């Protein structure tokens, strides 16, 4: 029943559309707004390459730190930006829980399902991994020489007394990637042994930074010598000329970097095209840029990588030692952050003092220490590496719920502040006692 002229007009319009889509691969919106926490070194090449591939679409990159980015997306839900592009999986989880992301299944082929032990994509499809990064140890060569420090190779090396006051890390509560590393360590070694390791390394820490980049920044300046960082921080600093080196420990953890389309994005097609571009061979190759240095998730791209480029799909020691359990991680996510802060970040001085006393006593007494001294030292070590709650308690929904946004009617075991105060006094008491015992061991037989 369509009028002939209307039909003709429609046909003409259709031809026009066909013609123009032949000219451009896809007809996208003229704008794409991306909120990101990535540095300009990473965002600029991608934005430029994308604009080149899709002329007519202007990419507006808004650099914000993760907290400000999440807050911005949350507050602007009536008319949001299009894409959220960041490392921290926790930020994506928060957005997902608040229904601020939309599902999107990429059409790109050849992308791995898992990198290391960690699934590349959100199982529910709200965000996808486009790159991976391994955690490792970065050190300042001038600093190491000046302080005659040996080069650390494994996580366990960082427990050695020689590194006392030379190591820095960012707090898991402030850095989603550090969080994943801590979580992987706990899953790999088990709750109690894992915490013992964290606390012993904690004894050597000189700083628990409030932002991820604070650690490489300090190592670059030579403020301290050794940093526990994500690989590209170390590799790109070296590429920029700083006297630093980076090593992967034998058992490293691999963490993804993600991208997600924001719910009700205004430029839907452009947003989808951007995600596809990140996963395309073209996009993945940009990751190999020495200023970026992230690990592609597309296996074939490694063929184009320079020699010696880390490849988690070939080198099985890269992050595959632990079978990462996402559910366990998710339940205790916030609790773990608060626990680490209470035991280590906020009581670093006391923890340092306890381990300093233990290290000094062990050094002075040597292997020939008396039985009583040995007992006292063992007791001191136990106190300085104890954790106030068990793995079962940490997995308890009611306890973990005390640290989360509570829905109405949800049962929780208490308020966050109550738990934190208990943990804080536990830590203070233990560290003080451990220090006393270690000092007592010196005079014991």
């Amino acid at each position, binding site marked *: 029943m369509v009028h002939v002229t209307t039909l003709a007009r429609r046909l003409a319009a259709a031809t026009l559309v066909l013609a123009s889509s032949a000219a451009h691969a896809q007809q996208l919106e003229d704008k794409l707004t991306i909120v990101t926490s*990535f*540095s*300009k*070194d*990473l965002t600029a090449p991608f934005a430029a390459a994308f604009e080149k591939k899709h002329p007519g679409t202007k990419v*507006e*990159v*808004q*650099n*914000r*730190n*993760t*907290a*400000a980015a*999440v*807050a911005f997306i949350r*507050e*602007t839900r*009536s008319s949001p930006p299009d894409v959220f592009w960041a490392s*921290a999986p926790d*930020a994506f989880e*928060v957005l997902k829980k608040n229904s601020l992301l939309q599902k999107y299944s990429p059409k790109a082929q050849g992308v791995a399902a898992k990198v290391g032990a960690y699934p590349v994509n959100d199982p529910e499809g709200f965000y996808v991994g486009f790159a991976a990064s391994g955690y490792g140890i970065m050190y*300042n060569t*001038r*600093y190491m020489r000046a302080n005659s420090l040996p080069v650390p190779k494994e996580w366990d090396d960082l427990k050695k007394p020689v590194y006392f006051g030379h190591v820095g890390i960012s707090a898991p*509560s*402030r850095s*989603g990637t550090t969080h994943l590393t801590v979580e992987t360590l706990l899953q790999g070694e088990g709750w109690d042994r894992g915490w013992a390791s964290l606390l012993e390394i904690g004894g050597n820490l000189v*700083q*628990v*930074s*409030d932002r991820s*980049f604070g650690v*490489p*920044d*300090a190592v*670059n*300046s*030579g*403020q*301290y010598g050794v940093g526990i960082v994500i690989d590209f921080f170390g590799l*790109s600093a070296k590429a*920029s*000329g*700083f*006297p630093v080196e980076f090593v992967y420990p034998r058992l490293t953890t691999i963490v993804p970097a993600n991208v997600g389309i924001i719910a009700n994005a205004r430029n839907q097609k452009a947003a989808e095209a951007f995600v596809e571009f990140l996963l395309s061979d073209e996009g993945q190759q940009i990751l190999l840029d020495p*200023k970026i240095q992230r690990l592609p998730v597309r296996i074939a791209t490694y063929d184009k990588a320079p020699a010696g480029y880390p490849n988690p799909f070939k080198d099985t020691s890269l992050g595959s030692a632990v079978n990462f359990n996402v559910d366990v991680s998710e339940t205790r996510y*916030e609790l773990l952050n*608060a626990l680490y*802060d209470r035991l280590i970040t*906020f009581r670093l001085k006391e923890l340092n003092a306890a381990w300093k006393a233990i290290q000094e006593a062990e050094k002075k007494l040597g292997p020939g220490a008396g039985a009583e001294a040995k007992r006292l030292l063992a007791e001191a070590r136990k106190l300085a590496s104890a954790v106030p709650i068990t793995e079962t308690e940490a997995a308890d929904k009611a306890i973990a719920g005390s640290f989360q*946004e*509570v829905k*109405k009617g949800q049962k929780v075991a208490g*308020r966050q*502040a109550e738990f*934190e*105060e208990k943990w*804080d*006094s536990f830590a203070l008491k233990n560290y003080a006692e451990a220090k006393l015992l270690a000092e007592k061991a010196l005079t014991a037989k």
Partner: protein
Amino acid sequence: MAAISRAVARVPLLVGYNASPAQVAALGFIALFLVAFLIVPILRVILVAFTDPDGTFTLVHFGDFLRTALLREAFWNSIYVGVMTVALASLIAVPLAAILARYRFRGAALIHTLGVIPLVMPPFVGAVAMQLVWGRNGSVNLLLLDGLGIRIPFMEGLNGVIFVEALHYFPFILLNLSASLASIDSAMEESAQNLGAHGFGLFSRIVFPLALPGYVAGAALVFVKVFDDLATPLLLNVTNMLAPQAYLKITSVGITDRMGYVISVIMVCCSLGAMALAALVLKGRDFATQQRGGGGLARRRLSRTGTIVAAVFVVLTLAVVLSPHIGILLLSFATVWSFAVLPDGFTLAHYATVLREAGPLIANTVLYCGLAGLIDVVLGAILAYIVLRTRLPGRRLVEHVAMSAVAIPGLVLGLGLLRTYYDVPLPNGEPLATFWLMLVIAYAVRRLPYALSAAGAALQQLHVSLEEAAENLGAGKFRVLARIVVPLMTGGLAAGFVTSFATAAVELSATLVLVARNADAPLSYGIYVYMQSAAGRGPGAALGVIAVVVVAIATFIAYRFTERGRGRAAREAF
């Protein structure tokens, strides 16, 4: 009194309040401004501090604050650091202000300008430079280690925080005290001299007490600012203070703990308490002198030894307080600077990198911060006038609300503005919250306290009889303001403008939330973007240097402007 009653004769109700209808309207406008851009946005964010998960009112979180050992410790640490910083900052600022006000000095304008620079600590760049100069392995310690085999922990623990904060915030005292000293009636000093006072006795018994409003205003600002500052504790990795505790809670992704907002509320209360205490110190004393336009203290020439001593003091002080900025300058020219006294080599490449984008960033910074400074000076002066010269009900409340902004974390205000105004569209459909003017308002609101205290201090030294005399001579209220009050307050207003402008130029926390388009971004945002990667350190520092230069130019102009006003009537004594 005839003039006053004539002015308000038409509104008999206002006679008792000693206010004109225009003043009532002005107070109402300021109150409205604060409600719209401070109270409502803030409440929308921090109300959670008073609610439990079900949304009902509760004070249990404040109980938790008191029950938490870490936070009690943080509270006392913050107080300690605030008080000690005021002491240390006074040691730097008072002699500097005295020398500048008292003696004829070549390059006084330059010294005044340099004295403001420490307020401009570009985000991240300042921290990196500070560590490279004063840190564990900074230039100073590497030199000490080489020469003497010792290392001084300048940047460690609470004492490190005090050291860095004093270097950073002493200009608050310098600016306000200088403005006050410039307004002292030289006749007072001459009388004292005729009665036999001289030297230190003259300064401590006569001059300093007369300049007390400026000193107290500056000292109170230093305390409050230090109490609420989080950049320095974070830089030094000191977390057991209130501001970093609040910040870490509020800005951690996915953490919904209310304690961060509880701490914010407590910080606001403490800051107001400190301001009230400062007002109490000045209460019941009269600082006003009737003779004006004398050009402040008589300036003299220094003897040769005096000149040398003063010059050495000034140069040494400036070298220390400007050390972070010297560090930033070096960093901006450095190829690589790592674990060394000086950079490995120098290059101009970083400036070339930022050249193209620097223009719009500078233009935006000057526009936003200039407007914010103007808003602050106008609102601050009007409010100070109403508070001190009228008895309008509610004027103190408005003043307290305005002052409380000093303790509001930038992120909280930014978030509140975004929440309140994102759904309010502009005529072109863009949201009001991400319009650049909102950034100006955010800057202005948070810095209104600086201009307000500066204006208050200036007005306290101005005797009301001058205004009455003018009114008796037939001048209307407006004419009195324009011809008598404002000109005589110029020094204080300039101090307020400079502090607002300088600190806004490097503000980042609200900026990061509110900037929605790169074209709208100011310098602080540009610095932030660079300072997230190793390769960006040099370009970030170059932008930091540019920010400092912009502020220096603005300060220099403001100083010249006030000096010209003073110079017209200045007398000189020998």
